[in-house]
C-alpha cells in the first residue's frame, strides 16, 4: 500500500477552514431550533472522533451528544471474555483476537493477564492473519475469538471460507459478532429514551448498505445520517441533522458518499449469510437483545470452538461491578463523569467497566480527551 493513497483518505477531511465553516453554519441554523436536540453516535469510533478533535467545543449549547453502544469491545459481557480466558488456558491452544480485546477484564482477569501467566494469546489486525499462525504452528489449535460489528464480520466469514476450502485442520472460531440496528431499536423502545437523531457509522454501511437504517426515520421518527469518521465528516453530518430539524424533515441521509450505497457490499453479505445466522446476544450493559448477534450455522459445528470446548466453558452470566454505570452510558442515560468511580478507581490502566477499556469507549475517550471541557 503506498502512503500517498493512504493520505488521500484523510487529507482534506481535517481542513481547519472547512471545519470552522461548518461550525458557523451549525451555529446559525441551531438558533432556529425550538429545543435542544440529542444526537446519538451509535459507534465508538465517532465517540472517539468527537472527543479527540474537540467537536463538542465547536457546538452550540442546544446540540448535545449521547454516546451509544457502538464498540464491539465494550459491549462484550464478562462471561464471553471468560470464555476467551478459559480457551487460552487449554493445552496447545493459541488464542487469537483483535487489538483492544486483550485488555478487557473478565472475572478472572484479562487476556493480557492470561498471557502473563503463560497462555499463548496473540492479536492480529485481520482475521486472515490466523492462517499464517496456524501454518506456523501445525501442532497447535488456533482459536479465533471473533468480535465486531457488520464491518469485521465478512473477514471472519472469509477466514472460515479459506479454512474450509483449503482444509486447514487447526483453526476454530468463537463467534461474538453483533449487528447495529437491533440495539438501536432496543434503545428507542425504552420509554426513557432521549435520543432525537442518530449518527450512523459509515464503515458498517459500506458493508451492509444504508438500507439497514431505513426503519428509523420511517417507523420511529428518528432521522439518521450515515457519517464518516473524520472531523469534517462529523461536522457535516451534524449540520445535516440540524437542517432536517429546522426544515421539519425526518429522513435517512448519507454524508459518506465516498463509499456507501443503499445496498452495500452484496458479495460480503452473501459470504456472511452462507456461514452465519442471527442469534440472540446478551450485551454488556443492555442485556439480552433478540437476534442481535451472529452465530455459526449448525453445519459448521466442527469449526465452532464454543461447541468443541463446551465442557470447559463457564455458563453463568456475570453482571458488571455494582458501581459501574456502563449500562446507562450505553443507553445514553448517563455520561461518564457521572459515574462515581470515573477517573479514580476506574482508569484506562485499571478499568472496572468495559467503557473504560476500549480506546473507543466513552469513558476512556472522556478520560483521555474530555477533561478540558
Amino acid at each position, binding site marked *: 500500500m503506498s502512503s500517498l493513497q493512504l493520505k488521500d483518505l*484523510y487529507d482534506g477531511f481535517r481542513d*481547519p477552514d472547512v471545519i470552522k465553516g461548518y461550525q458557523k453554519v451549525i451555529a446559525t441554523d441551531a438558533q432556529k431550533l425550538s429545543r435542544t436536540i440529542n444526537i446519538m453516535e451509535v459507534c465508538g469510533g465517532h465517540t472517539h472522533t468527537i472527543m479527540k478533535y474537540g467537536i463538542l467545543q465547536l457546538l452550540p449549547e442546544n446540540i448535545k451528544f449521547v454516546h451509544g453502544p457502538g464498540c464491539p469491545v465494550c459491549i462484550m459481557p464478562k462471561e464471553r471474555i471468560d470464555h476467551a480466558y478459559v480457551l487460552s488456558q487449554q493445552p496447545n491452544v493459541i488464542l487469537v483476537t483483535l487489538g483492544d480485546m486483550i485488555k478487557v477484564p473478565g472475572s478472572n482477569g484479562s487476556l493480557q*493477564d492470561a498471557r502473563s501467566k503463560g497462555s499463548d494469546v496473540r492479536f492480529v489486525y485481520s482475521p486472515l492473519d490466523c492462517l499464517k499462525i496456524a501454518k506456523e504452528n501445525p501442532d497447535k489449535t488456533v482459536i479465533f475469538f471473533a468480535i465486531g460489528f457488520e464491518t469485521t464480520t465478512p473477514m471472519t466469514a472469509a477466514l472460515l471460507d479459506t479454512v474450509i476450502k483449503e482444509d486447514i485442520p487447526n483453526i476454530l472460531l468463537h463467534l461474538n459478532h453483533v449487528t447495529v440496528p437491533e440495539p438501536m431499536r432496543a434503545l428507542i423502545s425504552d420509554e426513557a429514551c432521549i435520543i432525537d437523531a442518530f449518527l450512523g457509522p459509515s464503515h458498517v454501511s459500506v458493508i451492509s448498505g444504508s438500507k439497514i437504517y431505513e426503519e428509523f426515520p420511517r417507523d420511529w421518527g428518528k432521522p439518521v445520517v450515515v457519517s464518516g469518521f473524520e472531523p469534517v465528516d462529523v461536522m457535516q453530518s451534524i449540520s445535516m441533522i440540524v437542517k432536517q430539524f429546522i426544515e421539519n424533515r425526518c429522513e435517512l441521509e448519507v454524508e459518506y458518499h465516498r463509499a456507501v450505497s443503499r445496498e452495500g457490499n452484496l458479495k460480503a453479505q452473501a459470504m456472511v449469510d452462507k456461514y452465519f445466522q442471527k442469534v440472540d446476544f446478551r450485551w454488556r450493559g443492555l442485556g439480552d437483545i433478540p437476534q442481535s448477534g451472529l452465530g455459526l450455522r449448525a453445519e459448521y459445528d466442527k469449526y465452532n470452538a464454543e461447541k468443541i470446548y463446551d465442557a470447559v466453558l463457564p455458563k453463568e452470566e456475570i453482571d458488571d461491578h455494582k458501581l459501574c454505570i456502563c449500562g446507562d452510558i450505553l443507553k445514553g442515560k448517563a455520561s461518564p463523569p457521572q459515574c462515581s468511580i470515573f477517573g479514580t478507581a476506574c482508569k484506562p490502566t485499571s478499568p472496572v467497566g468495559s467503557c473504560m477499556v476500549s480506546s473507543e469507549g466513552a469513558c476512556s475517550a472522556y478520560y483521555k480527551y474530555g477533561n478540558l471541557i
Partner: protein
Amino acid sequence: MTKTITLAQGNGGEENNDLIKKVFYKAFKNEILERSEDAAVIGNLAMTTDSFTVSPLFFAGADIGKLAVCGTCNDLAMMGAKPKYLTCSVIIEEGFEVESLERIVESMRAELAINGAVVVSGDTKVVPKGSVDKIFINTTGLGEIVQAGISSNNVSEEDVILINRDIGCHGATIFAAREGIEMSSTLRSDCNSLYPQVKALLDAGVEITAMRDATRGGVAAVLNEWARQSDVCIEVDEEKLPISDEVKGICEMLGFEATALANEGTFVLAIKKGSAAKALEILKSFEVCAMASVVGEVTQKYPKKVILKSPWGTSRFLETPNGELLPRIC
C-alpha cells in the same frame, strides 16, 4: 498494580512509571536517582544504562547493535555530556547465527566511532534456546559533561519547545516490519547518534534548559514528564508537530498517534526563547533534521499538563501513553 508483570508495564508510559516508582525507586531511593533524568549526573560525569530487546533485530535504518550504542550515547548527550566509555553485555540464545552477531557488533563499532566513544568492558552469556528472544544487549555509558545544568526539572515560561526532526519513524518502522505491512520504502527508523547535533548547538551557545530523547512513550511521554517535573503547562500546536506522510499513514491505518510512537534519534528541547531561531538554523543544517520545528510554548495555564491545540481552535490534553500501545519494541 497487577500481580504479574504485563507487557504494558514496559511501555515507557504510565504503567511503566508506576512499576519503576513502586518497585525500584522504593528500594533504591536516593537523591541522584530521584531526579529522574536521562542519565545520572555525578560530579562532571554522566552515567546511564539501557537494555535492548528489539524484534526484528534488523530493520530499515538500523539494527539492534546500532540501537544499543545510540540509545546509551543519546541518554548521555541529553545531559549535555560527551559519550566516552561504554560497557557491552550480551545475552545470546543458543543457536544464534555467528554471522548475525558479527553484523550487530560491526554496527556497534561504526556507531561508537561517530560518538568518539569506546567499549572498555563487556560480558557474554549464552542461555538455552527459549530463555531469551535471540539476543539481548545491555550497554552502560559514561560521559563527560560539557554543559552543566541541563535538566528536565528546570523548564519555565522563558522557554520554547522544539523538536529536532519528524517524529514516530522508529516505532512505525518496527511496527510495519513486525506486522508485515508494506509501506513505501522511504520509511526508516530515525535511529541516530545525537551527540553531533547537541555539540553543534552547544558550540553555538544556544541556551538549552532541557533535552530528552523521545524513546518509548514518544514525544507525549517526554512532554508530560517535563510538565510534571517542572510544574508547568506545555501547549503544543498540533499543526507544527513534524510528522512524515509515511508515519501519518501507519497511524491512520492502525489507530495510533505519532506522539506516542517510539523514536531513537528524535529529541525534544526546551530552550530560551531568544535562542530558538539560532537553534532551528543549526538543527536544519543536519540532513535528518530538515523538519525541525518549534512546536509549542510553556505557560501556567494547566500546570503539570500538556495541551494539544488543533488548527480549528479546539484543544485537549495530550496524555502520557498508557496500555500496551504497541508490541514491545525496545
